[in-house]
């Protein structure tokens, strides 16, 4: 059996956050119901097909959007159909994303019963004013309650997302959030820098000068500080924005970064199987229509050339603390025996940005902070 990961996208939210440019729309009862029916049908078909190709399920991830705006019974049914339509690996990781404002202990219990063994909570901040600044609808109290509830129903594999660089947020406030969450015994944390994506209300506010973004110095400080603080609690940075106790890394996300194979189901989901990437119709109703009519909902695709694969390996691998195996770095396919990447790699090593050990090339802590620039230098 060859393991594979499956991602399922729930494109609904209660309201859209001010910084969000993901595929999501406000939840509406009928749309959600129709969408979940389509997903159910699609998952059953696609996973059975994977099974027939000798694949087993290594990780399952239900993300969004906000999966927990879907009625718990529907989410539980979706989990059940997935876990019963194809063989699953004994150590399967089943993650559901949840927003603190949309879960109750009962919801979490049902997800747990249906097979979820990992929960990712969109906490973002433990300051209500900052949550408001982001357009989030939950409060810090609700976040703490969600953690308590998750623990109560047996989710020990629990992760929380935090955002730094929120207008009005001081680096100290961010550090306090990190400590507060770590003290609650979470084995996994993600800390993302706020990005001002094109077309979002937050971007417009920044461009119009209505809000002052955090200074680059402070952002860099937060980035470095997260590493130090969480290490005190036994959580190591294993990716640019992700921290875990050894063994508690998110294996689903590692699949993306290690260029493993995955199938994406639902609107706007991406897949990567057999050297081909493709993505589904972005609009939820288009997806529903296609599934109902039994036609393809694929919106676009690309064959990954050896050159693409090489670029991806560097781009993704350098984000990981484990780095990239040197044999993938032998240079772009068709290149010469002495790939120019060696001289670039050497120069980056001299500048203290890259390190070479155990046959792997990886960014130093200093290099991680400028990972995009290093990546660009290596692939150019």
């Amino acid at each position, binding site marked *: 059996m060859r393991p594979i990961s499956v991602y399922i996208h729930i494109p609904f939210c209660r309201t859209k956050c001010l910084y969000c440019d993901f595929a999501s729309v406000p939840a509406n009862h009928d749309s959600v119901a129709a969408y979940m029916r389509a997903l159910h049908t699609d998952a059953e078909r696609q996973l059975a097909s994977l099974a027939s190709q000798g694949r087993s399920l290594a990780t399952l991830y239900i993300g969004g959007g906000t999966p927990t705006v879907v009625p718990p019974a529907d989410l539980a049914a979706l989990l059940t159909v997935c876990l019963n339509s194809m063989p699953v690996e004994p150590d399967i990781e089943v993650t559901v994303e949840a927003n603190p404002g949309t879960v109750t202990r009962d919801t979490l219990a049902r997800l747990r019963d249906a097979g979820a063994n990992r929960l990712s909570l969109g906490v973002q901040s433990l300051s209500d004013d900052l949550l408001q600044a982001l357009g989030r609808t939950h409060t810090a109290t609700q976040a703490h309650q969600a953690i308590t509830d998750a623990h109560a129903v047996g989710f020990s594999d629990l992760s929380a997302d935090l955002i730094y660089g929120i207008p009005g947020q001081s680096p100290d406030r961010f550090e306090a959030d990190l400590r507060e969450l770590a003290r609650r015994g979470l084995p996994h944390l993600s800390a993302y*820098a706020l990005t001002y994506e094109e077309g979002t209300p937050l971007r417009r506010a920044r461009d119009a000068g209505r809000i002052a973004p955090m200074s680059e110095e402070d952002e860099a400080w937060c980035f470095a500080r997260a590493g130090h603080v969480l290490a005190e609690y036994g959580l190591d940075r294993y990716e*640019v924005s992700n921290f875990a106790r050894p063994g508690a890394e998110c294996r689903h996300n590692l699949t993306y970064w290690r260029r493993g194979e995955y199938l994406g189901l639902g609107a706007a989901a991406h897949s990567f199987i057999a050297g081909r990437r493709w*993505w589904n119709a972005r609009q939820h109703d288009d997806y529903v229509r296609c599934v109902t009519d039994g036609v393809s909902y694929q919106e676009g695709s690309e064959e990954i050339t050896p050159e693409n694969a090489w670029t991806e390996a560097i781009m993704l691998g350098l984000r990981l603390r484990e780095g990239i195996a040197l044999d993938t770095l032998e240079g772009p396919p068709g290149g010469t025996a002495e790939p120019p990447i060696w001289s670039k790699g050497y120069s980056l090593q001299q500048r203290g940005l890259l390190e070479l050990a155990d046959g792997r090339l990886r960014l130093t802590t200093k290099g991680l902070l400028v990972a995009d620039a290093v990546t*660009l230098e290596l692939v150019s």
Partner: protein
Amino acid sequence: MDAPTATVEKPRTRALVRNFCIIAHIDHGKSTLADRLLEFTGAVPDRQMREQVLDQMDLERERGITIKASAVRLEYTARDGETYTLNLIDTPGHVDFAYEVSRTLAACEGALLLVDASQGVEAQTIANFLMALEHNLTIIPVINKIDLPGARIDEVKEQILDELGLDPDDVVLTSAKEGIGTEEVLQAVVDRVPPPVSDEEPLRCLIFDSTFDPHRGVIGFIRVVSGSVRAGQIVRMMATGGSFRVETVGIFAPGLVPARELLAGDVGFLVAGVKRLSDMRVGDTVTDAHHPAPEPLPGYKVAQPVVFCGLYPTDNSEYDNLRDALEKLQLNDAALSYEKETSEALGFGFRAGFLGLLHMEIVQERLEREYGSNLIATAPNVVYRVHLTDGSAVDIDNPSLFPTADRIVRVEEPYVLARISTPEEYVGPLMELCGDRRGVFSNMHYHDGQRVTLVYELPLAEILVDFFDQLKSRSRGYGSLDYEPIGVRPANVVRLDIWLNGDPVDALSVIIHRDRAYERARDIVSRLKHVLPRQQFRIQIQGAIGGRVIAAAAISPYRKNVLAKCYGGDITRKRKLLEKQKAGKKRMKMVGSVEIPQEAFMTLLKLDD
């Protein structure tokens, strides 16, 4: 080229031949009118008709201007029942190519002077008109675009009378776009343009343009002024001295159609196994090698480059490709000159000379587009004549070679006579502009109480610096410019060097006026601060004259450069972003550890207002 078996009906007599061109300000509709004349006379079958048939290069179509001259032969049956042969010669439409225009005019007896009905007479209209008068051409004024809502036919007629002294009753009204007035234009050419004078001996042909064909070599576009020329004849280029055996002569029908011979008064082409454009130069006279004419036709000169810049491959290993591309381009463009140059900052490259800014832009674009070269072009500059303390004089076409002050006695720089045409209300701002640019007021003409022509003597170097854009913006797009060289004048200039992190970058040196040196240096340094990409280290930018720093700025390093999120499973999006950045990086040149984008060189020439 068409099969040599094609035969061409020759006009029975010279009286049935007319040679003419169209002259106009840019955008006044020259190419469109030419298209209509071709259509009307059936010179181009409809199915072959493309917009602006005469503008053949992609670049010409895109920019809407003619760069190379070309010619076409039209058969027109006039009202007297006779079928006339009309040779239409298209002229380049830009001041950079004034010499080529003058050779075209010399090949004609008449000119259609095209004026846009809403724009009226412009600077280039006047310049072209004066040039046509110099060549004793019969001028037929044509007011075009009469269908447009903004057309002011009566006013423009008055302008034609006041500013050009032409009889408004002689004006032909057209809309080339709508095909109005096409036949009237053709009839006017027959009625008013005199037939060519035909002298039997000796052979003298004017080369008014040439082009390079990879199979046939140079194709000369010629006007036979006297005598006749045919295949097999041995001819000599009177200025460059080479002798060649004529392989083919023929006419533009359009397309090259071989003919048995060309007689005095004919316009056509000549192929003689010439391998290089420089052996068959525009303006030269072709004569019979055995019975040469005693004197060549007047007006020949070698087009002198007036604007120079360094051309460097962004990737040093591309040097050979760039050299090959320049070689190929020169086959087609005798006005382009270049020689090898080495820059400490940019490595191996070339110093190239051009007829003007437009010519420079065209060459750069063609190098990138047709030959796929990734280029860095340094800021354009003029040639300075520097008189040295040892009594010698040198021409400096590369700012980084400009001698230090202690070795200089005096410097001279090229000047132009600039003619600026503008509606009256913008005279103030434009005079201010010319004053700022060290212009010397020479003259001012008022026409019809609305339009004014300003005449200034200006250093050519000042015209390279953002002048045309400024002229357009200060006149809300209504001002127009034409200029001609008038020799050199004393120049009070110094070399400003730019240092990045303490190291001089020779390719960024510029020659600036001494009185404004501090101001310009501060301006340039602060502009560079905005165009040089941030790095992981601090970049110190300094402007220095003679080793003394007079302006400085710094670019702070970035502290953090990593995108927090990786878009989940959407790897494609992130990879495409990276590939785009990678492509952008290809267009930068590494100098030491600093990346210099093309923009940095152009920013040297911008001015703050």
